[in-house]
């Protein structure tokens, strides 16, 4: 392929990407999610997962949790650009490795198969706070809460026990201890 002739600047050296969890407190109003998500897509930032829901109905505040990857410079830009949005109140940023922060995702697994297989599946799920939500003589639906990579692994490994459907949320995060993020 011939080199493109029409780009003013050459891309700089590729830097190492870190995974960060960005938490955004926003006014719960029409279009606010589109503003946040549009900022990411418009500026070429990455979204690995997204979770959003209203957390204070009186003050009308929603909390958006976004898992993203980027160079330190990009992560800084994400925070600063988010803070410029009018409905954004505050922005928190945690590294995935941060021990002071709890990250959780939830997943629903549907298994179809005989008793034996389903028993094995339930066993495998046990260490991730498994809850059986539905049960018939052919199938069951199990809820687990775990880290992203654990759910990734589970949904791969459980195929053999009749896993036919997976539904999962984005990560939510909260700091450990008595402090909250100001």
């Amino acid at each position, binding site marked *: 392929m011939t080199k*493109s002739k029409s780009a003013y600047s050459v891309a700089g050296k590729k830097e190492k990407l870190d995974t960060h969890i960005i938490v955004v407190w926003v006014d719960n109003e029409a279009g606010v999610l589109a503003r946040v998500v549009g900022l990411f897509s418009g500026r070429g930032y990455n979204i690995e997962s997204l979770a959003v829901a209203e957390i204070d109905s009186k003050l009308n505040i929603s909390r958006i949790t976004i898992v993203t990857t980027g160079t330190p410079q990009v992560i800084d830009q994400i925070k*600063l650009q988010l803070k410029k949005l009018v409905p954004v109140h505050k922005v928190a940023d945690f590294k995935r490795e941060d021990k002071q922060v709890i990250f959780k995702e939830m997943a629903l697994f549907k298994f179809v198969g005989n008793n034996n297989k389903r028993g094995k599946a339930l066993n495998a799920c046990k260490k991730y706070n498994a809850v059986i939500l539905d049960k018939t003589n052919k199938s069951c639906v199990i809820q687990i809460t775990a880290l992203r990579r654990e759910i990734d692994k589970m949904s791969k490994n459980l195929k053999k026990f009749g896993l036919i459907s997976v539904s999962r949320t984005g990560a939510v995060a909260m700091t450990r201890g008595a402090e909250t993020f100001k």
Partner: protein
Amino acid sequence: MPKLLSGAEIVFKCLEDQNVEFIFGYPGGAVLPIYDELKNHSSIKHILVRHEQGAGHAAEGYARSSGKPGVVLVTSGPGATNVVTALTDAYMDSVPLVCISGQVPTHLIGTDAFQECDTTGITRPCTKHNWLVKDIKDLSKIIHKAFEVATTGRPGPVLVDIPKDIQFQKTDYPKFKKKNKLNGKVHNHFLQKEIDELVKLMSKSKKPIFYTGGGVINSGPKASELLRELVAATGFPITSTLQGLGCFPGDDNNFLGMLGMHGTYEANNAMHDCDLMINIGARFDDRITGKIDEFSPKSKKVHIDIDPSSINKNIKVDLPIVGDVQSVISSIIKTIKRTKPNFVKSNKQQISKWWEQIGKWREKKSLDYINSNETIKPQYAVQRLYELTKNKDTFITTEVGQHQMWAAQHYKFDKPNRWMTSGGLGTMGYGLPAAVGVQIAHPKKLVVDIAGEASVLMTIQEMSTAVQYNLPIKIFILNNEYMGMVRQWQELLHEKNYSESYTAALPDFVKLAEAYGCVGIRAKTPDELDDKIIEMINTDRPVIFDCLVDKQENCFPMIPSGKPHNQMLLGPKDQEQNKITGKGKTLV
């Protein structure tokens, strides 16, 4: 019980309370109730444009030259989509605009109704914020908030989308109190510690430079005054971006001219070799920095900006100062006076070698060109225009391309708010409607749009607006029959393959002027140029000036793509020794 007002009346009440004098707009079905109300508000004058993009650029010209927000009024659907270019332009160049758009009635939203479009969806990425008014009770609050968002912090465009049924509904209008407290998105809390650190760097520096931008202009005329004081108090050299021209006198000895892709040799070399770069209200745009890896490798960089997201976005800096330019410069001057009263004297010796070096670069005379007796050189045309208008407090707008760069290089500004150009977005067709807006804001002043024949045709219909309102704008077209900048790049970088850059069928601009009901003047030779320019200046009507210039002239100096600041391409004489290599081609 308070008097109930319709949504349309509330719109005007808000505009009156915001001291709006002019609206640039175009009527249509979904804004008819607002247009119906116009006659009852004599303090607000509506300027009818010929295309909504023109309304947006005219409002930009108005805002940039007056320091007040520009107000635009358009209908739903095509009215709103036509204004998108102007909103994006204003967003890139930080111009405060408030755009009010009509929308189909609330109950029809989402049904693909006639002239419906998702206006807030379309304009979300090109405004600071936008609102769809769903409840008449929110209307006044939203409009006042819109003005606040547009004008505070880093200014920019906002849009308020008002469905037609909301314009008819009635509610009360609470008395407007201007808030002193800002919306929390404005950052002006820099620390004295940071200023002290900067003054320390300044007193140590042997090769300092000020690199100033549009932020100085946006901070208000006082910021420009303070900047002059700061330069006088330090004796440092200063260069400016395209948007910053006018915040420092263009003919002052400390001024090195514009920097960047078509900046002067001395400005770009000084940026490359300096040991202290003080960026005031500029944003390290790619047309300024060139190759980022080799941008000013030996300098400490200081960045003064009101927008925290501008810091470290393109270039990592050593000392960021987030704040309004005017207050920051004022603090710097105070600190210098207090801690180093003899700064200039003690500093003069220290930076004398630096000035010697700058003098050597200046000797290159990088803006020189080979003049001709037969054809008008475009640079010569701009120089003559400057000489013949410089004593008149002239306002200049431009389109985008070679003529824009020649105007920036050869027209010397000495006051802020006199130079209106589309820098960030680079919108061809900006200059003519912008001149309309400038002339509205300054009815008695000389307003000249330095244009190219290709650009001006994109919004030529606004001549009709100029004629309707007796706006004596001067459209000074440097006519080379080519999209000049495209042609130049094709010549230098694409083996002279002039693909689609020649306009084979141009209108006769003199006849076109007459058709619009204004005056057409044509200059063909250098001998007649001065007389014709004087004729243009003395005509108290809109003029289209068709200046036939050299068709092959290129805009130099130029940083060839892929090269750092200290490897510029100078004029025709220098070019022979300095061919652009294959690798450089990738970079334009």
